[in-house]
């Protein structure tokens, strides 16, 4: 039974991503990707939160600690936040998180923020696919993963 593509797939590293999507824009955008039947990698599992501004840095550390290879936060475009300024808050705060991750020795590319509106189903799929490809290059994340 020689199926080269199947073999490659089995051997290929499959990154595990936790994706925090704001309810109003990015989760709705991912819904639109679904409605439009745009196919993308299944590596990112979504958690819908009220706003990107509600993401505590602890969520990100917790996800890495539990073995995530990448963490995605996706919110409304700057200026379009349903809660007026939550995404600005997220942007300022999460920039520092990125710095912190680098400081403690984790590739900062493993943490990504994106702005995906409710109308951007195709963009959501692209964001996930690109992130998965970038993480494949980086390989598994072990730096913050708890040893169990």
């Amino acid at each position: 039974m020689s199926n080269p593509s199947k073999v490659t797939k089995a051997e290929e590293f499959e990154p595990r991503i936790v994706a925090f999507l704001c309810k109003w824009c990015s989760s709705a955008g991912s819904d639109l990707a679904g409605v439009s039947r745009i196919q993308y990698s299944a590596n990112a599992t979504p958690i819908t939160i009220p706003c990107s501004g509600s993401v505590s840095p602890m969520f990100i550390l917790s996800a890495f600690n539990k073995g995530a290879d990448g963490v995605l936060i996706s919110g409304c475009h700057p200026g379009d936040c349903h809660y007026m300024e939550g995404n600005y808050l997220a942007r300022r705060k999460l920039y520092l998180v990125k710095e912190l991750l680098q400081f403690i020795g984790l590739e900062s590319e493993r943490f990504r923020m994106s702005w995906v509106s409710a109308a951007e189903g195709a963009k959501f799929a692209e964001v996930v696919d690109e992130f998965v490809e970038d993480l494949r290059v980086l390989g598994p994340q072990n730096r913050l993963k708890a040893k169990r």
Partner: protein
Amino acid sequence: MTKRTGVFVCHCGKNIAATVDVKKVAQDLAKDDGVVFSEDYVYMCSDPGQTAVIDAIKDNDLNGMVISCCSPTLHEKTFRDASELGDLYAFQCEIANIREQCAWVHNDMEVATEKALKITRASVRRVQHNQALEPIGVPVTRRALVVGAGIAGIQAALDLTDAGLDVILVEKQATIGGNMLKLSETFPTLDCSQCILSPKMVSVSKNSKIKLMTESEVESISGFVGNFKVKIKKKAEFVDPELCKLRDDCTPVCPVAVPNEYDVGLTNRRAIHIPFAQAIPASFTLDEEACLGLDPVVCGKCEEVCDVGAIDYDKKPTVTEEDIGAIVVSTGFDLYGMEHMGEFGGGRYPDVLDGLQFERLCSASGATEGDILRPSDHKVPKEVVFIQCSGSRDPENHCAYCSKICCMYTAKHATLYKHHVPDGQAYIFYIDIRSGGKGYEEFVQRSMENDGVIYLRGRVSKVYEKDGKLKVMGVDTLAGRNVEINADMVVLAQAMEPSKGTAEIAKILKIGRDKDGFLAEAHPKLKPVESVTAGIFLAGAAQGPKDIPETVSQAGAAASKVIALLSKDQLAHSPTVAKVRDPYCTGCEMCVDACPYDAIALVDGKAHVNEVLCEGCGSCAGVCVRAAIDVKNVTQLQVHEMISAIMA
């Protein structure tokens, strides 16, 4: 309390079941801690599906439930209602989206099933920590704000007052009426536009339930559906409308002449002026930018001649704050500027007119009192070329969309022209003729048959002046040849675009816009007059190009939505609001600063949440270093549980 969680996995026919092994998801979850019931069903949202949910809650004494199905935007309400019928609190039911976020975007069954399991399991872990919440009842302000007083805003305001509501009608210009006021006749009946609009304008001015604020704009908004607070800025009222007797002593002495907006620049007006004869409010007004008198050393002539003392140069703008329950936004359209279409010579040649200028030429109240004359030499144009889709349906250069009304108003223009100049010839360049509407197609046909309008299917490449004529270079694609017309006048049927200031008002009110800049409806089919923000509704051309009948219908629909909303004694406010865990709060005020709604304040050194103001965004939870504040049912504990479920 012992966790007794139910899980229901929907096939959605084959929509989910084609790529997710729903049986496996249900069976695997049945083994999870606290899950006492887990089953799959072909259509959970069907009546038997809901009955199964209700029965399962009762039979198994469930205290939490996850429906693994489509997006919560679709059936969250269905299943939360079902929960209550089964004596489970609505907020103890959560939706796991395994369709839009899983089944529809992956094609490998093994992979999709694995992801569906993670999504469902995360929701199970979350719901096991959900609190039994009940909606918070908040009082309603039975008063509406209408922004923009064109035909849409006027209609909405009148309908609202018919239902007994008080209305604040805000208009940026000095008079209400909007673009419809400038039209001469309306298709397909050729009713005089002013004659059908002015009765409604009069109704507004005589209506004691309408507080009309012209030369005013919404400056800011706070609050939420049923309880908005809106700040409205009114320009300085240099002429007191109560005192002004409309005697017109002032305009003859005013030394300043500027283009008259009402005549779309075809005539001039003075700095002090009345917008037009039937203006509402009926008062002269002073154009702050043009007036010299604000510096009384330079001029003060109008004040000197005003016997009744209605003019006061020292007036200042005012800002008032109003309590409002709901808002209708009807800020209308502008024509896509001629300056974008240099090839047609707009702005360069005086006899190339825009659609609204031509309306003013045809209008009995216009510059020429209804005689169609060339602005350049006041001669009667014998050959007039109308160019449809000027700026519409041209994604490369201009607007991609169809402006919907131009086919009809061009047919009207050509017909009106022939009525004024029976020996003249009208030509219309068009791409397609879109005349959907009652009596519309017949109207276009009449313009061809009775008025001999020549329709040329093709576009115009260039308009230039030669020997006192406008040379129109076009193509007739049906005959397959180039066309050159020596015209006396060219009229552009420009695209409609959202009025200037739409972007700003959308930002202030926090309502979205579509890719073309029009205000976005909450759902293109099922919520055509609702904005994405609860309590804010849309009417008229601000939402997309539309004609007068459609605008009036939409305004009525928006008004009826507001009436329904404000007919309730109380509105339900979501109980998923922030909650402080006092022992952990140090009173650092990080959350106070982060809250976009000013819903948090320090009380006795601890943060305290005003539940009615809180919208549950979680900005506070995101900044609290001690995790002392949480949004109910999306607590940090719950998110950590969800992460664990996904990474297990």
